[in-house]
């Protein structure tokens, strides 16, 4: 290519981008692994040894913590995958299937913590579900004395994760479908006597699986190590491993840093183990599936199971919508005594009372999300533009790199990152938190932008070049305007990811920077649903409004054509 000057600057973007998110992860992992073996000179850890691990193993609930993490993580991932597969199998070829992206956006853009609070409002013994069926069905006039939230088995945690991750996997599957002649294959299989759902399961799913493997691993890693949802819905004593690590990290006695680092390292080990185990199980499942596929059975259990899964997926989706609606109701509820299905009197007083204390977290949330999203956007656009000018695409290995922040458990490197930030003296600043958010915002912005960018017809640029336009003019006047829609969607996704960050805010902010999410998680332990409702609803509304704006702005701009 010509234009050496432009290419020179643009050529720096990949290195800059990789540094922006790899540096905190690599340094953070080192900063967690070393204290796990006793090395942290700042607080007197000078000798390497296994003492932190001994203290970790000596904790009476450690086995339960590990088992809870593993069982809830695997259960949530397997259930989300099964439901997403069933949903796609039934939805294939239906006319409404094209609009699924728009339907699931509200649940996808709502932060995990907000959905968790909404789920808690639904399933609590005094929650909306119990109110809706009382007293006429249950004869309860007082909330029943049963444990739901925080149940030892961890089912509420799994329920919330499945409700949130199923739509994500559905979207990833729909994206993967573009690379497979799914329509033709299903048509052929139907002419051979298979139902549409059976055809999708036996013919389409095996072909798209390699492309949804990384998103599945991201869900698995997330479910195994989630902290905010587990704080709200998970078992408390002993808690899942990641929560245990956080509890020790936040202990007033800094001596707890060492076993905390060991717990965080064990969390990393669990995730690595889970991903390796999943990968090793794949060939076994594939060979069993192959026998099932070639046996030629039509009208077997597959269609019925897919239909059942589809119904459950729809029910969970409806549940998520009700979870958000429940928060909205509580935020404007005045009197709402137990068996009533709806508040008996309404008020805006909850909002006006909270207005003053909401101002700081709202502005911090907006500032962090805007800054992290814009930086991520510039980096992602720079990388993609460089890729276009250099005419080569990043390979599969680079894709793994991009997924790294989503695969490495947050607790395993954020503590180490904090140590690094303290050393450089920028911990607890907005800049530090923006950087921590950027690590997670960047992959999502890049991934959502990459496909539309790469599939843009290159003849537009070549035509412009033949008219004498410089590379930068082509970028600003041709590519960017043509891709306005995808760019805005990528921004909305990045914004939502930032708003939802809990652990990165807590660690990089060193507890000094409060966002809607950190406040909501803290408040969720309390009893005042009216206050919690305002925080959680606002947390859900902000990303949704940004998403709606991202969709409507290009529509208005091009409406006159």
């Amino acid at each position: 290519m010509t234009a050496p000057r432009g290419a020179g600057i643009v050529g720096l973007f990949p290195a800059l981008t990789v540094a922006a998110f790899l540096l905190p992860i690599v340094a953070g992992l080192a900063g967690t692994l070393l204290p796990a073996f006793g090395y942290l000179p700042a607080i007197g850890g000078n000798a390497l040894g296994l003492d932190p691990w001994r203290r970790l193993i000596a904790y009476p609930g450690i086995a339960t913590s590990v088992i809870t993490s593993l069982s809830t993580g695997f259960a949530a991932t397997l259930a989300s995958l099964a439901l997403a597969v069933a949903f796609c199998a039934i939805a294939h070829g239906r006319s409404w299937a094209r609009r699924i992206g728009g339907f699931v956006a509200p649940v996808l853009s709502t932060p995990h913590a907000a959905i968790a609070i909404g789920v808690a409002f639904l399933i609590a013994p005094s929650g909306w579900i119990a109110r809706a069926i009382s007293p006429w069905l249950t004869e309860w006039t007082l909330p029943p004395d049963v444990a739901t939230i925080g149940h030892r088995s961890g089912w509420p945690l799994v329920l919330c994760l499945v409700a949130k991750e199923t739509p994500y996997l559905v979207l990833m599957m729909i994206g993967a479908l573009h690379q497979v002649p799914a329509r033709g294959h299903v048509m052929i299989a139907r002419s051979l006597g298979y139902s549409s759902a059976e055809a999708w399961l036996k013919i389409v799913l095996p072909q798209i699986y390699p492309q949804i493997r990384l998103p599945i691993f991201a869900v698995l890693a997330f479910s195994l190590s989630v902290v905010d949802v587990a704080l709200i819905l998970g078992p408390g004593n002993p808690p899942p491993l990641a929560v245990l690590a956080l509890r020790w990290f936040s202990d007033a006695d800094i001596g707890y840093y060492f076993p905390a680092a060991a717990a965080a390292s064990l969390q990393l080990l669990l995730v690595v183990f889970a991903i390796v185990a999943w990968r090793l199980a794949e060939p076994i499942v594939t060979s069993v599936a192959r026998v099932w596929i070639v046996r030629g059975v039509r009208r077997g259990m597959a269609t019925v199971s897919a239909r059942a899964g589809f119904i459950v997926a729809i029910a969970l989706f409806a549940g998520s919508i009700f979870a958000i609606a429940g928060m909205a109701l509580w935020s404007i509820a005045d009197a709402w005594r137990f068996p009533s299905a709806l508040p008996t009197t309404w008020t805006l007083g909850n909002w006006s009372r909270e207005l003053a204390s909401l101002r700081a977290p709202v502005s911090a949330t907006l500032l962090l999300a805007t800054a992290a999203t814009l930086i991520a956007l510039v980096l992602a656009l720079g990388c993609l533009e460089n890729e276009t000018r250099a005419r080569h695409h990043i390979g599969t290995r680079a894709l793994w790199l991009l997924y790294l922040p989503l695969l490495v458990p947050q607790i395993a490197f954020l503590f180490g990152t904090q140590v690094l930030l303290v050393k450089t003296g920028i911990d607890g600043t907005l800049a530090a938190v923006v950087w921590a958010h950027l690590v997670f915002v960047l992959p999502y912005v890049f991934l959502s932008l990459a496909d539309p960018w790469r599939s843009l017809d290159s003849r537009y640029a070549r035509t412009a070049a033949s008219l004498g336009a410089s590379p930068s003019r082509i970028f600003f006047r041709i590519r960017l305007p043509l891709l306005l829609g995808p760019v805005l969607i990528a921004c909305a996704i990045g914004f939502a990811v930032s708003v939802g960050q809990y652990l990165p805010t807590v660690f990089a902010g060193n507890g000094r920077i409060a966002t809607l999410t950190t406040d909501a998680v803290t408040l969720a332990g309390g009893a005042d649903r009216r206050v919690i409702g305002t925080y959680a609803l606002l947390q859900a509304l902000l990303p949704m409004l940004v998403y709606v704006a991202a969709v409507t702005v290009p529509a208005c701009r091009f409406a006159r054509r």
Partner: protein
Amino acid sequence: MGAKMGLALQGVRIALGTHRLVPPLDFVVAPGERVTVMGPSGSGKSTLLAFIAGTLDAAFTAEGRVSIDGDDVTDLAPERRRVGILFQDDLLFPHLSVGENLAFALTPALRSRDARRAAIARALDEAELLNFAGRDPATLSGGQRARVALMRTLLAEPRALLLDEPFNKLDSQLRHDFRRFVFDHASTRGLPILLVTHDAVDADAASGRVIMLGA
């Protein structure tokens, strides 16, 4: 199971919005007979086949009845019609071997492993691909893939065969050979064949009635 009466269309008309694509059509394709539907692209040839196969897009409105061997299949799901179809692309499933592609089409009533293997071997033998069962479809030539696609369709024991320009992508010699191969195999099984093409050579080779659709 009625007597073999072939594929019958009764008053079939298809429209896209106000645009009438297929005029009222009435005809019967007898067992072993070959009927060709010709017309330029956009004339609704493939749409007619989609209507018969049951995969017509919801954007179209269609009326009329389709019956096979006396059974009215108009309201049946595609998978219950037992209508085989071949497209321009062979659409072999890339995640299955050649033999597994064929096994997918075989009826599950054939239970034993040996019987299934024998049926697949017979089909491969007919396609002159005897030792190809374990091969990845991607390693086959275009002509070989096309023959596997036909054997896959026939193994599902269809009652009629629809051909949606399946010869288009092959070069002329291959095209001639594959056309022969398809017609011979379908005719020995006594299948009614409905061929859609825009190429007069295909229609001549089919040596049957020709129905013209306008643009």
